[in-house]
């Protein structure tokens, strides 16, 4: 089975600092792999391991060398970086470019993350599925593959839902899936010897018109934090005292 995984490199959520004067993130903010995408990679690797054969190909639109290296070190077989001056555009541009690449690769299954930690539109997965006209299963928190059929557990409001789908399909991963493995040192060493391509939208036959964003990106701002209080209502007085003390201790006020 050939499994494609769509991965995005994002500013490391643990290291983000905002520059008020620039109206943007501090330049040189460390980059990381979008968290959900690592769960998608892990799921793809496990399915390949279960089958004992197959190929896991990872692709990213926009600069993502560290992310692709990491996926290769985790065990992916091949990486493709799709880069061009107009990328990343809006989510439809990203999806259009990815769909063009996926038509060429014709994988049996596509994994993506549910959403990113930077722009976070959650559009790309559904858009790719629509462009390719294949089934989409979102919010995936569990999976099982047997006799050519995938049984998927979805997280929905107030519960869980099970769906069955026969590949090809596009699945969007959430972090309740198996914890992504750390790359081993052997994996890091082997990744250097694995195929890693860099292509442009033009190589995929994507026209300039298709690369023009319809959504424009205005800027970034940080919401002012305001102090919040806690109201203790309908609690018995003894409990209220305990909670108050805990509240003050937590803030090192007593």
């Amino acid at each position, binding site marked *: 089975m050939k499994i494609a995984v769509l991965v995005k490199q994002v500013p490391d959520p643990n290291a983000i600092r905002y520059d008020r004067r620039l109206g943007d993130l501090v330049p040189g903010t460390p980059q990381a792999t979008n968290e959900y995408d690592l769960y998608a990679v892990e799921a793809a690797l496990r399915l390949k391991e279960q089958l004992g054969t197959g190929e896991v190909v990872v692709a990213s639109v926009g600069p993502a060398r560290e992310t692709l290296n990491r996926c290769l070190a985790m065990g992916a077989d091949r990486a493709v970086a799709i880069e061009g001056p107009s990328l990343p555009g809006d989510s439809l541009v990203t999806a259009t470019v990815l769909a063009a690449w996926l038509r060429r690769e014709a994988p049996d299954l596509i994994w993506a993350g549910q959403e990113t930690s930077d722009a976070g539109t959650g559009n790309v997965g559904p858009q790719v599925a629509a462009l390719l006209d294949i089934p989409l299963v979102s919010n995936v928190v569990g999976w099982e593959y047997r006799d050519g059929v995938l049984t998927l557990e979805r997280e929905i409001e107030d519960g869980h839902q099970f769906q069955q789908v026969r590949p090809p399909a596009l699945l969007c991963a959430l972090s309740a899936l198996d914890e992504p493995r750390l790359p081993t040192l052997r994996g890091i060493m082997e*990744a250097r010897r694995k195929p890693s391509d860099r292509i442009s939208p033009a190589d995929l036959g994507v026209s300039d018109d298709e690369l023009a964003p319809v959504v424009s990106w205005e800027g970034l701002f940080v919401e002012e934090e305001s102090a919040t209080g806690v109201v203790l209502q309908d609690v018995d007085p003894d409990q209220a005292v305990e909670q108050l003390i805990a509240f003050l201790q937590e803030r090192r006020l007593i």
Partner: protein
Amino acid sequence: MDFELTPEQIQVRDMVREFAQREVAPHIRDWDAKGEYHPEVFRKMGELGILGLPIPERYGGGGFDYVSLALACEELEAVDTFLRVVISVHVGLNSLTLLQWGTEEQKQRWLVPQARGEKLATFALTEPGAGSDAGNIQTRAVRDGDSYVLNGEKMWISLANTADHFLVFATLDPSQKHRGLAAFMLERGMEGLTTGSIHGKLGIRAGDTGWISMQNVRVPAENMIGEPGEGFKIAMSAIDQGRFTVAAGACGLIRACLEASIKYCHERQAFGQEIGRFQLVQQMIAKMVKGYETSRLLVFRAAELKNRGIRNTRETSLAKWVACDAAFEAANDAVQIHGAYGFSNEYPVERYLRNSRGAVIYEGTREIHQVLQAEYALGYRVDRPLRCPQPPAQAFEEQEARA
């Protein structure tokens, strides 16, 4: 001179950081407070390949260079010293010594399982009566047919109670002092070999430090590493590797002190402003930055020499001295910046202070490094070529082979 890390070095650093943050950081306060020891962490390090990081791939290791090794040590000790200690003894003092001095047969037998993380190894030189004065150790090895019989005590040995393999130093002839030493690989389970832990330590309380007792332990002659009388040279070249990992780890401890202190400087208010605004507090922060950056440069220079297989005793000793002193000072200042909170284990800095203290003693005390540096400068000390020089890192070995 190139200060850019390669993509692989960055990947090693990030992986080790994530491992330590994920597996150990959430528990370490508790483990340290209770003096609890969790060797299962080492199994995970083995699975990830960290326990064979700089060992060539042909011997089951990762084949990474010494800069990567330094980065790994920094990340480990940024979480807790006990994690870096396993690299110092298992990788630095034992495995890299086997790589340098062992025969092909010895490497296959001990180095390969160690590099794969299947067996843990340590290094036993210090005794109750001899530390700095290592030429004066009293453990005796007496030839008997095709084996040696060892008797004696080792003290302050990291992983003593955990390791499977021990690189033990003994004297064949006490009257010959350091010229009479020999090195042996011992295995747990050999008759007459017992080990135990030392309790009541100031620091590294989540780690195993202990003693080894040998009573008529019969060791086959083929377990001798190097030649009779070469033990002291082997011990000193092992220490060139161990010290390097200690110095690199100290950089991680300084970084942890700096990060904790910066955070607290922004949080804590006094006299109507963040304490980071006070110049005397800034001085402590500035000194931590100085200690971190200078120590790292010295570590990376030593790493470059090691990568190329160039003798580095002098440079490694300087890195170890500077980094460990700076780490102790940084931890002491970090406690100061935290005020009374720094005096309790609610914050990690008191643990950093306790952990930083040992490294000013082991792998050459501060005084021994000062003596070494002065002797080199004055021309009283000159390094002579070794029978088995330290091999270059795998990538540099390959480069040389191509050239």
